[in-house]
């Protein structure tokens, strides 16, 4: 009885006042990676003939940043109409039926800068699958009823989904609005309610011709194919419009207040925090930061990592607490990062899973306290050694399947890397010194820059507590070691980074992702 997860989607340009000591960053992120300009699609092949399956990824530099103003959500909706809405030859129902006996996978995943059409089938089914895949790209049906159905679904995903059914996703997407307000990343990838409502059938067809073009396409294939499958696909897709590369994106400048509180009728409190930073794959400091952030809170890997240990394991505050060195989307069915969500501009984020409302202020402070200690004191040698060993092993599973291998290779191209990112990371792990890691932390992490999004019931009360700087003492049902109680004394009064009332903004959930 589970619903397919919320498609990754939301957005609102928060017109947030930029003020206060923690408000305007003035921090400029480096320029975007060098995009190529080309009239023919790039090709990437990773043949593995002994495998039982074939993966294809058609990777476009087309994402939510391409949504025209007032038409937020257009790229994701266009991709959905292509992948699900049928082709000239097959109606939507016929398309589903044609893929079914093969159990072939075909999905479109849109992010801020990219959309990937990811397909997978058994080796035997490849010749039946490929013509369908090519038609999805070249000859979408643009059936008005399907466009309406998918548009309505996208609106529901915001109104009835994101706002109503997942506090955790709400917290993360609200944080993104705060970090990127005014930037092309500043709306939810799935769109806004009003943006989606204003999209016409003509908009979708025009957008298809504008962004899903040869100039923006890389064709990738991996697994049990014979011959030059990428070249064959490139030929068969050569009828797509030539198009032109996307303009370079500006660097984000965060102008939101320290706290964004979302009022919502919910029994628990979801917390996300983070800031943009000027590092990404390919930068000399990035491997060191990946190691440092892993030590703070590797995604769903338990109590060997600080936030999880301190907040959940020792204090029982919630179900889990994690940190991320780049934009993170979890791959379905596990804890691994999903491939093909690359971004020119990256972020450091922390996810505090829902806490009981009476502990919300303590939980916020506990996270801030841990981040502060981590940033200022750095890692210990023992911790560094352990995390390096962990990543050396864990990252072997990152490119374990053909499909993921291909995904990483495409992301390497996005970042303009000569040497594959995973290879670089694994090579650097062995040599990283404690001083390097802790120096990178000092260079790139300033806890004062953190923005904090909180989805909770009683946001006004929390805002008042934050503004007054009320202490937030913690009590437990059982005894605790003296060291924990001593730390709690500090946490209960830990500075919240607020100077003025306007450093806290309260919004109702209905206001988010509206326009």
């Amino acid at each position, binding site marked *: 009885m589970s*619903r*397919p997860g919320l498609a990754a989607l939301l957005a609102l340009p928060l017109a947030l006042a930029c003020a206060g000591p923690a408000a305007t960053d003035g921090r400029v992120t480096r320029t975007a990676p060098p995009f190529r300009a080309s009239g023919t699609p790039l090709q990437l092949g990773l043949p593995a003939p002994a495998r039982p399956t074939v993966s294809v990824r058609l990777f476009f530099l087309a994402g939510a940043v391409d949504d025209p103003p007032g038409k937020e959500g257009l790229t994701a909706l266009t991709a959905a109409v292509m992948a699900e809405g049928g082709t000239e030859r097959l109606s939507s129902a016929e398309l589903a039926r044609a893929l079914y006996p093969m*159990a072939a996978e075909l999905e479109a995943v849109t992010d801020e800068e990219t959309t990937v059409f990811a397909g997978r089938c058994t080796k035997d089914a490849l010749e039946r699958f490929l013509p369908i895949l090519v038609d999805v790209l070249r000859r979408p049906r643009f059936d008005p009823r399907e466009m309406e159905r998918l548009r309505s679904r996208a609106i529901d995903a915001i109104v009835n989904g994101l706002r109503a059914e997942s506090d955790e996703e709400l917290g993360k997407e609200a944080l993104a609005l705060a970090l990127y307000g005014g930037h092309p990343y500043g709306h939810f990838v799935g769109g806004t309610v009003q943006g989606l409502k204003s999209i016409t059938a003509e908009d979708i067809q025009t957008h298809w011709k504008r962004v899903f073009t040869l100039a923006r396409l890389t064709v990738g294939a991996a697994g049990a194919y014979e011959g030059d499958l990428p070249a064959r696909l490139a030929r068969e897709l050569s009828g797509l419009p030539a198009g032109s590369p996307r303009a370079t994106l500006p660097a984000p400048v965060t102008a939101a207040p320290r706290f964004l509180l979302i009022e919502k009728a919910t029994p628990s409190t979801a917390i996300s925090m983070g800031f943009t930073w000027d590092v990404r794959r390919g930068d000399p400091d990035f491997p060191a930061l990946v190691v440092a952030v892993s030590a703070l809170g590797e995604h769903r890997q338990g109590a060997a990592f600080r936030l999880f240990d301190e907040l959940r394991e020792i204090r029982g505050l919630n179900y889990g607490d994690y940190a991320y060195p780049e934009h993170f989307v979890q791959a379905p069915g596990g804890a691994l990062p999903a491939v093909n969500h690359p971004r020119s501009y990256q972020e450091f984020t922390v996810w505090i899973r829902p806490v009981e409302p009476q502990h919300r202020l303590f939980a916020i402070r506990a996270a801030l306290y841990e981040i502060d200690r981590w940033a200022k004191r750095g890692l210990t040698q023992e911790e560094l050694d352990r995390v390096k*060993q962990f990543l050396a092993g864990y990252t072997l599973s990152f490119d374990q399947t053909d*499909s993921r291998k291909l995904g990483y290779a495409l992301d390497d191209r996005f970042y303009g890397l000569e040497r594959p990112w995973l290879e670089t990371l694994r090579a650097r792990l062995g040599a990283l010194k404690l001083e390097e890691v802790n120096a990178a932390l000092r260079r790139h992490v300033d806890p004062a820059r953190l923005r904090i999004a909180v989805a909770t019931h009683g946001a006004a009360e929390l805002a008042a507590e934050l503004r007054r700087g009320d202490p937030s003492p913690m009590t437990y049902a059982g005894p605790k070691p003296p060291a924990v109680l001593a730390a709690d004394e500090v946490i209960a009064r830990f500075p919240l980074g607020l100077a003025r009332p306007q450093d806290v903004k309260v919004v109702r959930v209905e206001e988010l992702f509206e326009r």
Partner: protein
Amino acid sequence: MTLALALSLSLAAAAAPAPAPAPGPFPYPIHRRTLENGLQIFFVPYDSPRLAAFFTVFRVGSRNEVEPGRSGFAHFFEHLTFRGTKSHSGQDWERITKSLGLDTNAFTDDDVTAYWLSGAAAALPTVIALEADRFMNLDYGEDDFKVESRAVLGELLKSQASPDFELEEAGRELAFTRHTYRHTTIGYERDVRDMPSGYRYSLELYRRFYRPDNAMVLVVGDFDEEQVFEEIRRRYGPWKGRGEEARVEVEPPQGKEKETRRGWPTPILPRLWSGWHTPGAADLDATAAQLVLWPLLFGRPSALYRELVLEKHLVEELGGEFQPHRDPYLFGYQAILKSAAAEEPTRAATERAVAEVAAGRVDEGLLADVKSNLLATLLLQTDTPYRTGIWLVYYGAVTGDPGYLDRVIQRVKAVSPQDLSAFAQRWLVPANRTTALVATSAAPAAKGAAR
């Protein structure tokens, strides 16, 4: 009244390797060994150079929670196993497994609790030593127990944010009157909040169900089978004790149709769920019929999906799935309705679709496609040692034998329209059906109103 074990475990004392069976529909061979203490071991050789996944699987889940007020304890106990032993504290376990670069976690369901570590095959000797120690010598104090209970509460809070959880809780509670499938795996909120009082109960649960004859070890990947077997024998061999059978009550026949409605305080699309009581995994024919019938009735290629989702736009998504259970469970679907007005036509269309099958009008082309899909799915979804193992964990837990998966798929190949018709006539009848609906309500919700 207690349920007899659906399928008896084979507890042969001999540890000699069984001859490698010819691969069946499942794409990889499954090699079975047994220790004298009853522990069953399954090896699946898999082409994943230097990588392997290691599972310890217990045939215990929320099904075993027969005592009032203790729903959710099997899952809670799963959390507690990470608190360590006298030899290796929980912190040690975490640090050692992470130093080996392993992806680790565990999950609990109605019939199963499974623990897995995935990563470098070279780590297997250490993994085997750690895991055997954890399950044989678990040692946690009441303070740790209380702290961990709050992590479970946090997990519940996360789940409760979704109306899908409310729907599942409502549907189970109404459909079952006696059997423990009437509560969700995470448990009732009142029981989760009361978990700190159950320290002694948790120790009993450990003693009764965490025993070698109620467990399986499964290793999938690239490793030397004899060496790994010797390590398992050395570490898990000294494990003593016999598991107990949970006194799970048999669910009596339903007799008449049931229905419930629950409110939700924020704007959502209404959720409709309907489920019919159907036989458990011991009935191979019924299991094969349900595996085929679910996609045929409710899946994306079905006539119902086309009508409700694609043509009439009454339903945003038609979902659910059939999952075999150890005891008789439910065959059901969930519809996310586009509006309250969509409820009646959706239910009527479903009624018609079921009646068509019962009348023997089955699309034979679609039936063939469903069978092809199942076989192709097995290939596509066994692309890592972990994903391969997960199939065997579930099918092994409901019967005690992962090879059950092969037998079911083999049986699926022979399912005929007549079989489906007979199944629908026997089980998919109104008197056997429960329906639940969760929808936005201006009035406070029936429970959890403050959410």
